[in-house]
């Protein structure tokens, strides 16, 4: 997949083209969207964006891991991880666009 990488700047440029706000304000909007989503997730809430996908937080139990290089056992503490489940619409569009 010889694609390019988009960043916050590209998203804020897209917002700039769509609404009549300054570039600075658009950058603040993108930041604010990511911030509100992160805050909800850190609170343990799921973030469900219709026709995009669902971000949810899962609790992982403690387990014994192993350093693959040395074979040494290391304890892995219980932790919270984030999973993203894409919507059907996203899956369909990504599959169709990359045929």
């Amino acid at each position, binding site marked *: 997949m010889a*694609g390019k*990488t988009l960043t916050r700047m590209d998203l804020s440029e897209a917002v700039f083209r769509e609404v009549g706000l300054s570039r600075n304000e658009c950058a603040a*909007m993108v930041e604010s969207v990511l911030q509100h989503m992160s805050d909800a997730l850190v609170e343990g809430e799921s973030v469900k*964006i219709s026709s*995009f*996908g669902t971000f949810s937080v899962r609790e992982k139990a403690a387990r014994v891991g192993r350093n693959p290089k040395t074979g040494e056992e290391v304890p892995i503490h219980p932790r919270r991880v*984030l999973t993203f489940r894409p919507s059907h619409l996203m899956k369909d569009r990504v599959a169709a*666009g*990359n045929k």
Partner: protein
Amino acid sequence: MIRSELIQKIADEHELNLNQAERIVNTIFEEIIDAMSSGDRVELRGFGAFSVKQRDARTGRNPRTGESVEVEEKCVPFFKTGKLLRDRLNDN
């Protein structure tokens, strides 16, 4: 939190009307799907990165009938959590 609640928060925080906030939020998500549909990555430092992964063709099975079906190779969306958010989830 669902899409409409996110829109409400953006409207409140930036003193925008709901319509405007909705267009802003929708544009951001639309742009991400659009990028991935073109095979591009979207990297949002601190939050995470959206990318496209290729899945090989395989022989699947209809779980109800047990019948074999050929599944073509396809591309699927993938999200990797950013370091800052991962750390925040585990309160460091």
